[in-house]
């Protein structure tokens, strides 16, 4: 009897509570959500237009040369990249690959634009650091899948919510490694800038950022790789590109289609990783 009584306790209305909040946000902050959507769509379309401006066979050598220049004459990587891109073209996944690449680039840029300043703030202010660290720890315990839920709630389906989830998912390493890079600068170097009368701004630009740059670049690398993995997962809420091909492959149990799209993702992942790894090495002080 008493057992039954305890089961009759009223349920805590968490779901209702959250639903009310969401309703309130949609009613009152709709303009903000629309604004974010417009900016993201503009950015995404911009990169997509650039990447699909020329036919694939013209684009491949251009990308090859670009990689050659960015990596400071890494001929092996450039040739490998050209081969990989030709393979993607041959698999007839070029358009999807460029879509994925646009999503990754646009999302990464936003993640870095938000993440690096937050990292700088956290490095220079202990209270900000505490708050940020708690938030990041919390975020990292959540499965990446869960990020899709708020994105869908506020931005419905499509590329834009995919980007939102990607930005949120890819931002933590940029924050963490910027913070770490600045905090591990030897105290004497900070003292040097103070002792010679640098303003906080001069200290940041002339000492903190350049000295922390190798670590920050490691954060950029992580950010890009996480963005790629999330862009693929975001196909479940309607983001386009190679991820969508994989998803369709899974749904139709079409092994050939799924494998080819997966292979294309691997090629892009390797190219992006090698480029940014090269940049990290270039940033390290020379022998």
């Amino acid at each position, binding site marked *: 009897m008493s057992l039954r009584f305890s089961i009759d306790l009223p349920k805590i209305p968490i779901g209702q509570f959250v639903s009310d909040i969401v309703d309130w946000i949609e009613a009152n902050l709709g303009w903000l959500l629309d604004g974010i959507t417009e900016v993201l769509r503009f950015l995404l379309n911009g990169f997509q237009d650039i990447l699909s401006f020329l036919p694939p066979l013209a684009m491949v050598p251009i990308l090859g040369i670009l990689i050659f220049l960015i990596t400071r004459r890494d001929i092996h990587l450039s040739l490998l990249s050209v081969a990989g891109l030709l393979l993607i073209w041959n698999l007839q996944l070029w358009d999807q690959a460029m879509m994925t690449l646009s999503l990754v680039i646009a999302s990464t840029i936003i993640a870095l634009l938000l993440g690096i300043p937050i990292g700088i703030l956290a490095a220079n202010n202990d209270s900000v650091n505490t708050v940020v660290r708690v938030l990041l720890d919390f975020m990292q315990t959540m499965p990446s899948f869960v990020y899709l839920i708020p994105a869908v709630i506020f931005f419905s389906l499509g590329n834009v919510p995919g980007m939102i989830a990607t930005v949120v998912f890819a931002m933590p390493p940029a924050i963490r490694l910027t913070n770490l890079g600045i905090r591990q600068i*030897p105290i*004497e170097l900070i*003292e*040097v800038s103070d002792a010679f009368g*640098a*303003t906080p701004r001069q200290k940041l630009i*002339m*000492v903190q950022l350049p000295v922390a740059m190798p670590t920050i670049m490691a954060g950029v690398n992580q950010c890009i790789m996480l963005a790629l993995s999330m862009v693929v997962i975001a196909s479940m809420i309607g983001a386009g590109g190679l991820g969508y091909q994989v998803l369709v492959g899974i749904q139709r149990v079409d092994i050939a289609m799924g494998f080819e799209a997966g292979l294309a993702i691997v090629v892009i992942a390797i190219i992006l990783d090698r480029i940014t790894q090269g940049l990290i090495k270039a940033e390290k002080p*020379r022998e």
Partner: protein
Amino acid sequence: MDDDYEPEVLIEVQNLSKIFGGKPERALQMLRDGKTKDEILEKTGQTVGLNNISFQVFRGEIFVLMGLSGCGKSTLLRCLNRLIDPTEGSIVIGGDDIVAMNDDEIREFRRTKAGMIFQNFALLPHRNVLDNVAFGLEIQGINLEERHTKAGEALKMVGLAGYEQSMPDQLSGGMKQRVGLARALASDAEILLMDEAFSALDPLIRRDMQDELVELQERLNKTIIFVTHDLDEALKLGSRIALMKDGKIIQVGTSEEILMNPSNDYVERFVADVDMTRVLTAQDVMKKADPIISCRSGPRLAARLMKEYGISSLFVVTQHRQLKGIVFIDDVVEAVKKDLTTLEEIVINDLTTIDLTTPLGDIIPIIADSKYPLPVVDQDGKLKGIIVRGSVLSALARKESEPIVA
């Protein structure tokens, strides 16, 4: 160390205290009541960094802050340019109260008045040598061309011309610290704050750098506050030395004063194992050169002097006491026999001479091999005194503060 001019006070520190910790009032009060550092730490959890420090630094001197690690010497140095804010007290530099300055004023002070040199060099790893030296000038907003010119000049001063484009990690420790020195010199600040500047260098390089600092100082006449834990270094560089312990200054004085009159047991123990061969120089151990003989005199006078003083060699000088050479008894006797009228034929000009500032340690091996006393000359080659084996030994054996010069 000329005594003929009245030293001008450039830095005046009065009743300076520093408490590390949140609310210093209670700790300060306890400090005034004469409680010790340990008692205060136990009662309030706050650390006393500096305890009621007062001293003056004169324009153009090398003022050494010395003490063991944790004695507060680096804290005191950092108070002088407010890298650390003192809790109480005043620091007046060239008429301006540093402690009262606001952020902009202290920034201006740091840019133009006081350069700093760090123990671990603190060079920016992403900049080449020239841009490292130009760092302070860049902060001041000086344009690229001018700051590269000035930085180049500063590099030349420290003997690193030609290394402008090298990166810091291509340089040896000694060269890195030269860059650090050049960076502080480039902004032409009057005051140099040197924090254990040579402590990270190996002993030989350290000695070279000390010599070079002394030489630079003679040319540039900066006011240098030099922090070190090495007494030998302090004695070698310091015009005056402040010995610190537990955040307090125990004794301030010239190296001579500190060595000869240690103000308490602590100082005495500190100076007990000083290597006297590095502290004492030729001018401390030399004897008066007497007799000497003019180059115009003849061998007969030389022979008489030698007989009278019972010596077998005699230094020959010009009218202006310029050292000409030495004559030995055998040659003098020979010359008398031959009836020569001057000493010119028998003077031996090829002599080992010693500088006034040569440390005793360097003199010992020379005198051990020498068959005659060593002449000590000044920069103009004038004979200032002589060193015989006996005077070296007696200087080393000396216990009390008795005068060394006989």
